[in-house]
Structure formats: structure tokens, C-alpha cells
């Protein structure tokens, strides 16, 4: 490891290519923190956006007109507005309405921090697409299969949980895959409300070191690898869920 750090320093001295997040322990720490913040933000948002998708699609089939309307309104609102505006809306508009708490240093602090608002905002953003994705999958499940479950006495919840969702899931995995990749890319917006994720930390580093080109190349490659891992995982999952003789 030391040799690697040393290599980066030599690289800088001999070529001027400046990678302080390798040789400088302070910048390295910032970069690693940023990386894990991005991973944490992505994983939490992936999780909640899928949950929102599943519940939203269930509510969309509700017999109650107003439940369906509210879900549809939510989808329209979040699909037809920029995610950055949504994020600002949550952080600045709603965030300032909430009560403040006293922090350890005796100062006033918003009850929810930037990270939490990013989770809320991005989960609802990706969740709106997930509801539509799950709905299309649910519509692909034949009525006759549902009817067979009804005839066996299944409740609506059991039908959804044990028949509709597992079948719909397999149909929508490619579309879900796409949306989740988009979500990971969209986590960079959290930069705008000073969540110390990877892009934010990279910005800090290039401000101190004036090495924008190197940092941007590094960012591109890192996101490329990160998203690559997600895609690889989703494809494996897709294959693992494949049922002999079902679907194309």
C-alpha cells in the first residue's frame, strides 16, 4: 500500500498528474468517506424506492377512488418535475418548516439533516418510476392465474404477495434494473445540499489541489465501476430468479 501511495507522489512529481486522494492521507480519508456515503445513500434509496414501488402499485389497485388518485398524483408530480427541484423543495421548503433541535455544541440544528432529506427525496423520485414499473409487471400477470388463486380461497394480500408480485418481479427486472442504475447516478444531486457524498468530496479535493481534470476522470471511472457492479449483481439476480419454462 505504501508503495502505491509513493507511486502517486512520484507520478505527481515527474508528470504533474495530481492524485492527492491516493498519496495524501487527509484527502484519501475524504474520498473514502465520500465513497461510502454514496454507497450508503444508494443502498438506502434503492431499498426505499423499491418498497414505495411495491406499496404504490398495490394501492393503485385499491377499490377506493381517492387512494388511486393520490397515488397517481404522486407519480405525476415526481415524474414531471426535475429531481434537483424536488430535492431543494424537501430540503429548503419542508426542512425549514420543521422544528429545530439543539445540538451537542448548544447551537440550533434542523431536525433532519441533508443526508436524510436526500434519502427521502431520491426514494420518492425513483419510487414514482418504480410504481409504474411494478404496475406494468402486475398487468402482465394473467387474470386467469389470479382467478385460480381466488378459487383456492387466497386473500387479496396473499394473491399479491405470493402470486402477483413474484411473477411481476420477473417481468420487470430489466426495467427496474434501469431505474435503479439511474437512481445511483442521481445520488450525485445530493451534492447540491452539501451531503458529503463522492462528488462533493471530489469537489473539496479539487478546490484545495486545483486538479479538476484528474478528479473528473477519477469520478467518471469510479461511477462507471460502481454502476457496473450494480448491473452485474442485478443480472445475476435475474438469472437466479429464472424459472424453467417460464418467460422468454
Amino acid at each position: 500500500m505504501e508503495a502505491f501511495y509513493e507511486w502517486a507522489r512520484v507520478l505527481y512529481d515527474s508528470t504533474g498528474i495530481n492524485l492527492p486522494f491516493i498519496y495524501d492521507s487527509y484527502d484519501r480519508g475524504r474520498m473514502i468517506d465520500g465513497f461510502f456515503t454514496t454507497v450508503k445513500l444508494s443502498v438506502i434509496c434503492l431499498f426505499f424506492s423499491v418498497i414505495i414501488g411495491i406499496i404504490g402499485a398495490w394501492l393503485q389497485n385499491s377499490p377506493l377512488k381517492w387512494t388511486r388518485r393520490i397515488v397517481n398524483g404522486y407519480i405525476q408530480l415526481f415524474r414531471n418535475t426535475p429531481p434537483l427541484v424536488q430535492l431543494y423543495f424537501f430540503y429548503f421548503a419542508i426542512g425549514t418548516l420543521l422544528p429545530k433541535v439543539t445540538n451537542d455544541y448548544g447551537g440550533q440544528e434542523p431536525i433532519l439533516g441533508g443526508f436524510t432529506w436526500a434519502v427521502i427525496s431520491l426514494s420518492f423520485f425513483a419510487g414514482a418510476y418504480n410504481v409504474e414499473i411494478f404496475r406494468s409487471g402486475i398487468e402482465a400477470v394473467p387474470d386467469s392465474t389470479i382467478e385460480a388463486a381466488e378459487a383456492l380461497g387466497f386473500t387479496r394480500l396473499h394473491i399479491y404477495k405470493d402470486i402477483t408480485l413474484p411473477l411481476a418481479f420477473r417481468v420487470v427486472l430489466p426495467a427496474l434494473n434501469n431505474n435503479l442504475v439511474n437512481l445511483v447516478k442521481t445520488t450525485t444531486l445530493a451534492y447540491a445540499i452539501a451531503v458529503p457524498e463522492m462528488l462533493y468530496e471530489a469537489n473539496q479535493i479539487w478546490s484545495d489541489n486545483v486538479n479538476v481534470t484528474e478528479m473528473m476522470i477519477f469520478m467518471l471511472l469510479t461511477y462507471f465501476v460502481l454502476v457496473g457492479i450494480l448491473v452485474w449483481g442485478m443480472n445475476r439476480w435475474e438469472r437466479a430468479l429464472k424459472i424453467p419454462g417460464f418467460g422468454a
Partner: protein
Amino acid sequence: MAWSEDQPMVSIKDLHKSFGALEVLKGISMDVMKGEVVCIIGPSGSGKSTLIRCVNALNDIQQGSILVEGQEVNDHNLDKLELRKKVGMVFQQYNLFPHKTALENIMMAPLLVLKQDKAEVEKLARQLIKKVRLEGKEESYPGELSGGQQQRVAIARSLAMNPDVMLFDEVTAALDPETVNEVLLAIKELAQDGMTCMLVTHEMAFAREIADHIYFTDRGVIVEHGPPDTFFDDAKDPRTVEFLGQIL
């Protein structure tokens, strides 16, 4: 008023059923005693499927009465779960759950609906697989089975709920000719075991062999009925005679 076994298992009186403005059943009455096998035949669109789907409340009823073991089906407060525990149904298109193995398909309803013990249910499911002559196919998915094999799994799946009445809606109509017999054999054995059955079928020879009573429906009414020999040899109604003439 408690139901007793000398009363009809299924008692249909003056049943009317419409889809919107289209009246499909125009006053159907029939009684099915315990252990009886009743076949319903008739031209396409005459309302045969609609009739038996009313018996387990897959279709709602506008007028008239269906009593299943004395329980009124045409009732807003009907406990569908109770009804469906008593009435099993097998469909033309099998409608197995494609993401579950043959064994799991059979086990699902007893586990989820009847909340029976898993080990017990599995034992029962293996017996039923044997009964429909599908040993060795326990772990196969529906997509890996032939139509005839899938239909026998579907029969076993219904039987796992230990119903008192079985409904069959043209269960061999989608099958290749060479697999029709294996399914008919399974139904015949069931009938011989004393299961009460209502079958919609186009298999005239089979109907004649296993039915205790045959009903001929046309345009939503029963135009002729009787025991098989009388029905097939001495049909009086001209429409029945014409239909039998075309088919036999």
C-alpha cells in the same frame, strides 16, 4: 337451518346472470346430490362456464339462488373463503402458478389458506401427486410439464383443499388428443371415490360413462336433461337432437 347430507349438495334455483345488458343465464335450476356426477353440455356461448363459475362465486349473480351445502352464494355477506374451502375448481387453461414447482403448487393453498402444518401438507401433496400418477414430477415447474400433466397437477392442487364439490370447466379442451385420456382417467377415479362433480365437457363418450345426470344448455336455459342413457338415446328437444347429431 342446518344442511344435512340427504339434501342437495348444490341447489340452484332460477339463476339469472347478466354481463351488463347481456343476459347469459335466464333461469337455471338444478340439484346436485352428494356423490353425484353432473355433466353440462351445450353449444359454445350458451353459458356453461358462467354457470359453474357462479357456484364458487367467481361470477356474481343478479337473481335466484345457489345453495352450497345450504349456504347461500347470492348473498352480499357471503364468506367467500368458507365457500371456496368447500368448492374446488379446475380450469381449461390449468392456471398453475408458473413460479412454483408441481409440489409447491399443490401445497400452497393448504399452507396459506388453511394454515396447516407444513410437514403434513407435504405428505398430503406427495400422496396426491401419486394419485394423479405424476411421481417424479414433484420438483418440475409447470413450464416443464405437458398440458395433460399440468392439468393433473391442477386437479391435485384443488383436491389438496379437501373440497366437497369439484367443478371442471372443459378441462380437456386445451389438451392434445393423446393426453386427454390421462386427465379423464384422473377425473373418473375421483368420481368413483364418491366426489361430487359438476363438469362442463365436450367429451360425450366420457359424459355418458361417468355422469349420473346430464344437462343440455342453450342460450342460457336448460333445454333438456336426464340420466345419460335417456339423454343420449331419447333426446326430445330438437336443439338437443341437432347438437348431438353434430357431435356424435
